[in-house]
């Protein structure tokens, strides 16, 4: 059954059909929530809450990109949770270290779904750690755009749908996010493996 058929069936209240959509998108939803929240357990709660909200709101889905519609619900659930927590969603150093360890273990994890595959399998843990930290240091409005476009591979229009801003705003925020990431990574240049050092980039 294709996605449209699943959505039609789920709209009629079929929980099994909706759960197939959940399985398809849970990787994206949890990872997006994690990038926004900066905390895995909070991300877990937000993602679960988002799926519950999505099921209840499914009848209001009028077509278009289901992924964008769903990720918008995830984003809203995260911001609601953040407003509730009233704290900045920056990842702690301990969390980043833990993340790096997890990632090193999980390169062949079958539960890993959704996001684009790494271009280089041999990306070093130091670089990942640096990127995680630099992403976490971005302001919310820049981080969400960078995560959607660069980490999760959305195009500008879909990212604009997810966070409900104009495409032009996505474009400008993404440029600023990339510029800040570049500055942050430059400050950590000596940590980067040679092939990723910005001054050595040749392609």
């Amino acid at each position: 059954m294709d996605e449209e058929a699943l959505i039609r069936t789920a709209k009629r209240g079929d929980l099994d059909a909706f759960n197939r959509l959940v399985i398809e998108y849970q990787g994206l939803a949890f990872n997006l929530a994690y990038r926004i929240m900066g905390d895995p357990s909070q991300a877990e709660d937000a993602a679960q809450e988002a799926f519950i909200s999505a099921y209840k709101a499914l009848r209001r889905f009028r077509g278009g990109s289901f992924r964008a519609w769903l990720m918008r619900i995830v984003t809203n659930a995260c911001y609601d949770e953040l407003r509730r927590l009233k704290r900045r969603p920056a990842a702690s150093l301990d969390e980043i270290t833990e993340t790096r360890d997890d990632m090193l273990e999980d390169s062949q994890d079958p539960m890993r779904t959704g996001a684009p595959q790494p271009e280089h399998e041999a990306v070093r843990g130091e670089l990942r750690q640096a990127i995680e930290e630099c992403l976490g240091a971005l302001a919310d409005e820049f981080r969400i755009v960078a995560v959607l476009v660069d980490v999760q591979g959305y195009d500008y229009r879909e990212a604009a749908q997810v966070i409900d801003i104009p495409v032009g705003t996505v474009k400008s925020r993404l440029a600023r996010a990339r510029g800040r990431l570049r500055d942050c990574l430059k400050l950590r240049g000596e940590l980067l493996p040679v092939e990723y050092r910005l001054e050595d980039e040749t392609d």
Partner: protein
Amino acid sequence: MMSPTNLPAEDLERLSAYIDGELSPVETAELEARLAREPDLRSELLELRSVVKATRSIPPRRLPRIFTLTPEMAGVRTGFRFPVLQLASAVSAVAFVILFSFDLIGSSVSAQRAALPVGEVQALEAPAEEPSALEYQAPEETTEEAMLGGGEAPSAAMLEQGAPTEGEAQAEAGALKYAGTPQPEVGEEMRAAADEALAMGTATLAQAGETENAVGEAALPTETEAWETASTAPEATPQVETHAETPVQELEQGPNLLRIGEITLASFSLIFAALSLILRRRTG
């Protein structure tokens, strides 16, 4: 280590969009011409490309668990697919309760009618009270009854108590109780019994209904016998029996129909509820 650059925001935005192929053909051509003659801009482009490449290399985080929804999380009632059965069960249950309440009121009234003369006769031993308590008795017969049935009324009460009209112990006990109970308490007794029965559940309700009817029936023949006993008096008129039999027949038929209705509705209610439960388990 390189220091952060001071690239103008417009150029940064153009380079970023250029990486994603989001510039128009005209903008692309203009930027490529600049890149060909501006090494610094070209260097900025390479840096941004490496940032994007590094960011895209972040692997997704492992899922802590599966996020599929349970029916409870989704707020789905498992009988959702069979609302008709649930509705039928609810409707028949409500109809049963209404009918049962109607029956209860009817039984209470008939019990009062039957118990009243006996109780008063017993309590007061005044023969004149018996006919006056019966609403449907004609005024001209009152005098006659008062005179003729005066000696018979206590014996009628004795007959009832000595020889129960129904075999059921409950009915007998109820009849005796009502016979010796003042009028206002009869209704309370019935209501208390009904409340008790309602608390015991649907299955018990049906039995309780029968019990209540039995009590009513036990009281009704009491009335009949009282009249029959009275009519054995040498000078009893046939009109007395005629007057007595008509309401008694109506009251006997009424509860029978009500009882059948109650049993039917209670059965429907239980059957539909059971079907709902079975289907809910199979499909949930």
